[in-house]
């Protein structure tokens, strides 16, 4: 009787572990960044910018807005990473769900050193296909040099997490 119980315990444990592992793998499966990278959006001066121009780099696409305080709070870190790692092939791209004048004003205040594109709510809809079911902000997608989604993040990154992800891809 005792032996049988242990078999059941082991079986249940193995099943739970396998389930957990499967979930973890499923969550990290690279999703296709193709539709995102083929977007073309106006910058604050109205110039159309295609995301395809940054193919081959490690691209960090950040959906944000000036009316989103947690978005603004993590952006100085993005500016720093862009300054320190841009030469090694890192490219931040901000997609603002906002009015161009507000975006321009904030970009000036922050000395933003990467493009701030104007996305509107249509762009946020696209982020739904990449895991942002609630269309909430900030939502950030890290794309590797081959164009595959390496990581996505809803809400601000935990300190050091984005930098570690970028370092592993550069």
């Amino acid at each position, binding site marked *: 009787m005792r032996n049988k119980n242990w078999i059941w*315990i082991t079986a*249940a444990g193995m099943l739970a572990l396998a389930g*957990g592992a499967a979930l973890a793998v499923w969550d990290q499966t690279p999703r296709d960044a193709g539709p995102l990278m083929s977007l073309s959006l106006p910058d604050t001066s109205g110039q159309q910018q295609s995301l395809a121009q940054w193919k081959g780099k490690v691209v960090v696409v950040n959906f944000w807005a000036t009316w989103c305080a*947690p978005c*603004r709070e993590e952006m100085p870190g993005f500016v720093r990473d862009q300054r320190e790692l841009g030469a090694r092939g890192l490219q931040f791209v901000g997609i603002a*769900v906002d009015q161009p004048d507000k975006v321009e004003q904030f970009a000036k205040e922050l000395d933003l050193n990467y493009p701030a594109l104007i996305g509107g709510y249509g762009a946020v809809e696209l982020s739904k296909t990449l895991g942002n079911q609630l269309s909430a902000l900030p939502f950030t997608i890290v794309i590797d040099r081959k164009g595959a989604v390496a990581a996505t993040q809803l809400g601000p990154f935990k300190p050091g997490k984005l930098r570690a992800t970028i370092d592993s891809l550069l």
Partner: protein
Amino acid sequence: MRSRRWLVAALGAILFVFAGAASAQVSPLPPEKAFRFSARALDPHTVEARFSIADGYYLYRDKLRFTVEPAASGLAVPSLPSGRIKEDPFFGRVETYRGNVIVNLQLPGTAPGQKVIVQAESQGCADLGICYPPNIQRVTVPLPAAGSAPTRPDEIPRKQWFQ
């Protein structure tokens, strides 16, 4: 018997570990649950609009907009209660709402017994560090006939009846 207990304990421990792993991920509420909107008629010309905001979530006062259909209801811009003042480094002084927000909408153009559609546009954020795009919610409110008692709020939690 003793081995049975171990079995239960072991399975329980496994469950706990996985439940813990699942709940460690951030799972914010959808906006219509974080910012529950309801409305009821107080009399043939007054609708009480209400947001019940979940703990850990807040709405921006200056992003709150109400409209009522048909337009002939005659809703003027309602006066909103004052919120908590927050100093925002970019926008300056902003007011936010937590808990319940109640706004009375005066509708001079309605006829007793008619139905109106109340639409609320709101925008808010969660303390866990995310913001939602502007969200629109609509509620149909039947207005009482002249002289009748106000309708009861449709969403009194059952618990309250037993307290």
